């Protein structure tokens, strides 16, 4: 405000010093300067806000509908059932395991894909994306077939069960494997983008200073990728939580054994226990919200 006044004063001064032929031009300039802007930014915010809020409104309304459909009593009953408690426990544990395992695989794999141009790289790239585009049931079926395919009389599942001592199909490792297959793909994507955005030069310089490739990776690249890793774990965890198809086909839905919350919803729905199904769904929403919040806080913490 003060500045425009000063400018005005300056303009007037200059005016006085100019010849009459310039007076008209100067007049225009002052006129334009003196008037405040007519165009406001409000329409911009309205439009952007309007579009975004439609989506947010949809989510809020869906959740509200769910809440209204069920009652607190249903919630209580659902939480009280031992099967659902077991499913809850298994869900949290398996999602966490799958997410961490995904991260541990995604960091090196994402790094490799980002930094190195090796022959067949495009194949690996495509393969990593396959679990994302495969329909979930197909993924589950493929896992099932893999473990039971007889190769000259040798079967993976049978070998694991008899020789190694623990079977996979229809047991809890199958749940984790099914979740891992998909969540890892998402995690790799995230980590690859993360490493793409980190300047490789820093690692180069580190190497000239005496680092091996491995040291450069661990000391220079990984710390810079911290936020990316949090994002990767988040997306992996979320994906694992929502996984249903492959788990149903590969791990089955046995109460107290391989039942996770997503399959619980399916089972409850299949016997017409709609209230129970919605109650469990809301439990899942709550878990997801809590975990996402925690991860977000973690990610915002060490701001680099």
């Amino acid at each position, binding site marked *: 405000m003060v500045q425009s006044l000063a400018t005005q004063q300056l303009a007037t001064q200059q005016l006085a010093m100019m010849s009459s032929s310039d007076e008209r031009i100067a007049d225009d300039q002052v006129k334009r300067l003196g008037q405040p802007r007519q165009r406001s930014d409000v329409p911009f915010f309205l439009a952007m806000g309007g579009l975004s809020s439609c989506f947010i409104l949809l989510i809020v309304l869906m959740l509200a509908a769910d809440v209204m459909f069920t009652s607190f009593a249903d919630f209580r009953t659902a939480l009280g059932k031992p099967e659902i408690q077991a499913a809850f426990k298994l869900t949290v544990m398996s999602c966490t395991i799958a997410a961490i395992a995904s991260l541990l695989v995604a960091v090196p794999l994402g790094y490799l894909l980002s930094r190195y141009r090796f022959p067949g790289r495009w194949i690996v790239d495509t393969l990593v994306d396959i679990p994302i585009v495969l329909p979930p049931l197909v993924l589950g079926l493929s896992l099932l077939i893999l473990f039971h395919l007889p190769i000259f009389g040798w079967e993976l599942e049978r070998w694991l069960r008899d020789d190694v001592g623990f079977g996979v199909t229809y047991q809890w490792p199958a749940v984790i494997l099914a979740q891992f297959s998909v969540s890892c793909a998402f995690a790799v994507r995230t980590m690859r983008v993360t490493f793409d955005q980190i*300047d490789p*030069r*820093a690692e*180069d*310089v*580190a*190497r*000239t*200073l*005496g*680092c*091996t490739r491995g*040291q450069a990776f661990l000391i*220079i690249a990984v*710390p*810079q990728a911290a936020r990316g890793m949090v994002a990767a774990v988040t997306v992996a965890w979320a994906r694992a939580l929502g996984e249903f198809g492959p788990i149903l086909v590969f791990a089955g839905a046995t109460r107290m054994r391989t039942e996770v919350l997503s399959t619980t919803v399916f089972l409850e729905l299949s016997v017409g226990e709609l209230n129970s199904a919605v109650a469990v769904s809301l439990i899942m929403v709550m878990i997801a919200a809590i975990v996402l919040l925690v991860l977000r806080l973690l990610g915002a913490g060490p701001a*680099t």
Partner: protein
Amino acid sequence: MIELRDITIRAGKFSLENISLEIPSGQYSVLMGQTGRGKTTLLESICGLRKIASGRILIHGVDVTNWSPSDREVGYVPQDLALFPTLSVREHLAFALRLRKQSAIQIKHRVDELAALLGISHLLDRGVTHLSGGESQRVALGRALSFRPAVLLLDEPLTALDEATRHEMHSLLRQVQKASQVTMLHVTHNSAEAEALADRRFVLEDGKIHWQAG
């Protein structure tokens, strides 16, 4: 002395063929040439970050053609400096020394020495993300010099600086080179700079090296 014997480098569609070059020890050499003609590529080959298709590279008479960058004892300051965003200035200076497992006292000694030489003692505990252009340059320089390399490669180090800082850096660089007797190869496209700094000048033109007297 850095010796490039008949080397060929292929970088995508671009290649440098049959380059031979001798950079004298302990002297300040400047390499000039238009941007995008391969000067950075040449530097990368010398410090080992880029594989050469044929030929030999010798540093102080030792054939390092197949050596990894970590073994060549070459200090490198790239054009964009490439500082480590997660480390403090002190950690930058100490980086190469910790890799070489020097004792804490030795490291402290060297770090203080370097910081004094480069005028960044007051920045030692700062992070590197908010330093000014000149300050960042000095940190990068210090990092590259910390382990007393035989060779120091600078890729257009002063291009992004303002006039006043550039002059400061000129004198600093000369000072540093004289003090450490390191074989310096400084890449620039600015002839005034070359004039000010070089003991020996080289020009990369049309894929060939010409050298001129300092």
